[in-house]
């Protein structure tokens, strides 16, 4: 058994909130640079330039990449040989979010859903925990902006639905996001499981890399990702939504076996400021 005081978790969450919000994910940054290089439209080229400069300014001046510093989604993978001591885990995570958002001068965007009263500190986070093997704790913070979160979709397909129907649904989700949710997008797709599993998978898909070699073997998932990316880029929504070669930086799919009677499919739209940061304790 390895003992970890939750104070360490609080500190790590706080640091990750700051890192994720100010230091654009390297894979997202290089995908943006690559897309900028491929662009031929003059105005779109300029917008790519703004996005690149924005990321550089944010990093240099420790400013939020985007003013929507999001709802903090915190994923914890806790090794089964870890013994957590101190206050409750949930409290430690939320205290970490409060601290990080205060230290980072980030926006407090969390309100009571019924009264719309702001909690004032961006807590509570959306927390997901998983017990895994080993004696480490792996933490990931995703500050999820709502411009793109509002564009997510889920559908319970019939089991006889073809891949064609699924593809159409995913492409339509991107088309409906249109210029509103800060394209170019990272499209996360969850296929299978149950209603909530598909939604979760679509979020996890946003954490997979968006540049470089993304899948070594050409699995069915991988093939579908490639086909979808090609189709989505034909939409020509482009950076800032005013046209261009790249509408999505990547399409990432996560799947899980499902029931004979159905086929849940969820789409999570990530904006070009697709932020996340991970640490291991």
């Amino acid at each position, binding site marked *: 058994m390895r003992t970890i005081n939750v104070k360490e978790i609080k500190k790590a969450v706080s640091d990750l909130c700051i890192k994720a919000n100010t230091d654009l994910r390297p894979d997202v940054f290089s995908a943006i640079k690559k897309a900028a290089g491929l662009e031929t439209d003059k*105005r779109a080229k*300029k*917008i790519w330039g*703004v*996005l690149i*400069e*924005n*990321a550089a*300014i*944010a990093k240099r*001046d*420790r*400013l*939020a*990449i*985007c*003013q*929507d*510093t999001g709802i903090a989604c915190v994923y914890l993978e806790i090794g089964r040989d870890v013994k957590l001591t101190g206050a409750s885990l949930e409290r430690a995570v939320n205290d970490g979010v409060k601290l990080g958002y205060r230290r980072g*001068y*980030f*926006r*407090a*965007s969390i309100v009571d859903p019924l009264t*719309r009263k*702001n909690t*004032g500190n961006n807590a509570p986070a959306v927390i997901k925990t998983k017990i895994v093997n080993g004696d480490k704790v792996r933490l990931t913070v995703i500050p999820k902006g709502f*411009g793109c979160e*509002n564009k997510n979709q889920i559908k319970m397909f019939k089991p006889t639905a073809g891949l064609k129907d699924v593809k159409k649904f995913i492409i339509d989700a991107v088309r409906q996001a*249109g*210029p*509103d*949710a*800060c394209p170019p997008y990272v499209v996360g797709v969850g296929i299978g499981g149950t209603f909530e599993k598909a939604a979760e998978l679509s979020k996890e898909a946003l954490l997979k890399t968006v540049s470089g070699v993304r899948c070594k073997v050409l699995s069915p998932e991988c093939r579908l990702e490639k086909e979808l990316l090609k189709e989505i880029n034909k939409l020509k929504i482009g*950076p*800032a*939504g*005013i046209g261009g070669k790249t509408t999505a930086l990547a399409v990432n799919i996560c799947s899980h076996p499902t029931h004979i009677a159905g086929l849940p499919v969820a789409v999570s739209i990530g*904006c*070009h*400021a697709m932020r996340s940061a991970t640490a291991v304790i």
Partner: protein
Amino acid sequence: MRKIYLPLSKETIEDLRIGDEVLLTGTIYTARDQAHKRFFELLKKNKKLPVDLKAQTIYYCGPTAARPGNAIGSCGPTTSSRMDAFTPALLKTGLKGMIGKGSRSKEVISAIKKYKAVYFLAVGGAGAYLSKKVKRARVAVFKDLGPEAVYELSVKDFPVIVGIDSTGRSIY
């Protein structure tokens, strides 16, 4: 790139066409969902707005807090369509400019045409970059709304693109 000084004049507005890239200098007011809702409710009750929006420009934005020494934090645009239900009423009172991101409803487009106004696009998700164009910021009204309060911003060469012009044409 063309420079424009705010408030917008009738001639400037009529001269602008979709796709024009312009730099705005002068005063703009931030307002997002809750501030719009409050404005709308006041107008419904025939009450005066706490800020005179006549000939003014609204920026759909809720900035992050300013670091010490900075005028403002990150301050990019939020999705404009969420303001659509409230916009025609504001245009009727004399609002002339809006800055945001994304598409607008048919009703908003026809109100823009009717009242001869203009809708600008700022690059979404470029809040750190845009913060450098804001020279001063102060809360104008609705301080209780926190980041959703109405801020009066002094901007210099704030880069935008004409998204919907006064003839009712849209870039999308």
